[in-house]
């Protein structure tokens, strides 16, 4: 188990605490510059926090050099030794650990097969495509057989379709390895696809953690809700009574329905000013405004609406997320 206690992800930030359970895959979700990379560097030992401790299986890692920590890292940029072949790259951490030659080569071959690189063992990294280079970086990280594997947005520089394929591969790969994995991302899809657990990060603070479904259903703050939706959540204000102050509420774009296909149960209706439309094959995104706030509605299928139209939309009361007083 990897425990972070009283850590500051940036000078002067609020304290961050989390326990990463052994063998789990945790997705750390946050916007750009929210502290995800700082977190990765902290766990790896490339940076240190002014306060707090990093404890791995009851061993205090604070003060240990990265080389002495059982942590492997995969970065966004494809980082491989440019002058070494794929095989040499994969065996490099094993050489550093003093593993025998025969064991090294066997393990390298095994990892290469698992990651689809067995035909490329003698190539140099600059001869590989982006996806292959990143798979090499992952193979090299796994060769270390570290207790913790940290991946910092590893797929963000890859093509859309490739990302899709690799996320699936990574999921089965990482679950089988039994390592404690920490995977950072800005895309909630990654949290759903990979995460046993999700940690939401914003401005160097932990907002919430839990299973993806829990965090999706019961976000504890507006930002927490926003992080789990792509596009962001649709905000509106509710006035509980004349006396009580207006509270902030929000609903996810996929939970807004058109009057033509209303859901069952208790619902609320809103009037949306349509600003524009985007269709992506099986879905339509309607961009508009409700009570002066920008909204996006995701509907299945192709919908015909025109800009300037006022569209009544329906929301299930169960899908409405409410947050504190504004």
């Amino acid at each position: 188990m990897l425990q972070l206690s009283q850590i500051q992800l940036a000078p002067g930030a609020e304290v961050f605490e989390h326990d990463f359970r052994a063998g789990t895959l945790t997705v750390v979700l946050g916007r750009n510059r929210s502290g995800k990379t700082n977190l990765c560097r902290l766990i790896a030992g490339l940076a240190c926090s002014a306060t707090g401790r990093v404890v791995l299986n009851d061993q205090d890692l604070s003060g240990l050099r990265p080389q002495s920590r059982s942590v492997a890292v995969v970065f966004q940029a494809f980082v491989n030794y440019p002058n070494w072949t794929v095989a040499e790259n994969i065996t490099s951490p094993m050489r550093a650990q003093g593993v025998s030659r025969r064991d090294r080569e066997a393990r390298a071959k095994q990892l290469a097969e698992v990651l689809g690189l067995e035909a490329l063992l003698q190539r140099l990294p600059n001869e590989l495509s982006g996806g292959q280079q990143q798979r090499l970086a992952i193979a090299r990280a796994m060769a270390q057989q570290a207790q913790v594997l940290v991946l910092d947005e590893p797929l963000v520089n890859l093509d859309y379709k490739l990302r899709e394929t690799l996320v699936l591969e990574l999921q089965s790969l990482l679950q089988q390895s039994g390592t404690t994995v920490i995977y950072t991302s800005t895309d909630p899809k990654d949290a759903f696809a990979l995460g046993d657990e999700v940690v939401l990060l914003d401005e160097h603070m932990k907002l919430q953690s839990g299973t993806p479904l829990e965090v999706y259903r019961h976000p504890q703050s507006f930002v927490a809700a926003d992080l789990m939706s792509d596009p962001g959540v649709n905000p509106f204000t509710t006035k509980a009574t004349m006396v009580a102050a207006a509270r902030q509420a929000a609903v996810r774009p996929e939970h807004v329905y058109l009057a033509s296909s209303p859901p069952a149960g208790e619902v609320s209706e809103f009037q949306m000013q349509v600003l524009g439309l985007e269709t992506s094959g099986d879905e339509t995104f309607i961009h508009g405004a409700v009570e002066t706030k920008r909204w996006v509605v995701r509907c299945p299928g192709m919908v015909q609406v025109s800009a300037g139209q006022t569209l009544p939309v329906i929301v299930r009361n169960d899908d409405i997320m409410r947050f504190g007083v504004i």
Partner: protein
Amino acid sequence: MAAIQLEELSFRYPGAEADTLAPLSLSVADGTAFALLGASGAGKTTLLNLLSGLLTPSSGRVLFDADDVSDLAGRQRNVAQVFQFPVLYESMSVAENLAFPLRARKFDPLWIDERVQRIAADLEITQQLPLVASQLSLFQKQLVAIGRALVRPDVSVVLLDEPLTAVEPRMKWRLRQTLRRVQEELGVTMIYVTHDQTEALTFADQVAVMAEGGLLQVGTPEQIYTTPSCEFVGYFIGSPGMNFVDAEQLAPSLSLLAGTQRVGFRPEWAQLQAQDAGQLRGVVKSIQLAGTEYGAATGVVRLQTAAGQIAVRGQLDVTVGQSVGIHLARHLCFSAQGQLLLEDYE
């Protein structure tokens, strides 16, 4: 604005063994938002460079409104381009950046001012006009780069090379919206290159799917999505892509066209049912959550069938290892060569 015509255009790098771009022909109508979609290495950037004049075709012609521009240099073609990262004159102000292409072509200064104001208003960057370009955020800088591309009234086509790459994920939607709106308002012919199918399908009136230097299919986003001309297009579009199974593994109750070797269906065209129902049987291998609908968890269920692995979208009321039947509400027939056979059945 111009209509673009590509006639049997091909390109090969000097000394290369094979064509980077196989001979292809394409028509882009005036004022269209056109997307070139494909994975890295598909040849879309090469095609873009042939359009902008950076490369000269090995064979074939590029026509802007029936004028052969294949041998003309970039500056003579009246083309504008937006790159993956904001390409601006960093030391100049936003207003000067926008005015630069007009000043270089010696338009009347008063008219230039008006035009700059108008474009800035369209892109909602009027407040940034006096600021020096290097002080803006990435999103704003890319808006200025787009403005610089749109400011010339005589520009034949605006080329965009994955313009959302440098922008934060939150802002991608806004930038795409802005581009679309401005494209419609000004009636600009835009050709947008991307590897992201959501970007292509949401932005464009027409999409061309490319792979390995060739055009696989050109059509509206809906056509590309619902009637992909070949297996690769079916697989490439959609997240997850289309499922393909050998026809003989399916129950005979499914009506198929003559010559069908493979059957394709999108994950949302299939439903999970009891083990004995449906045209296909499978075992649940993994469940991927995607959200909730009407309060129940929904997502993608991946199954192992006799015909291979398939993905089905829907409610996640199954467990791993469970045997289920799969009912196809809709499907497409593909030939042995992977080509779409038309007249699909509902």
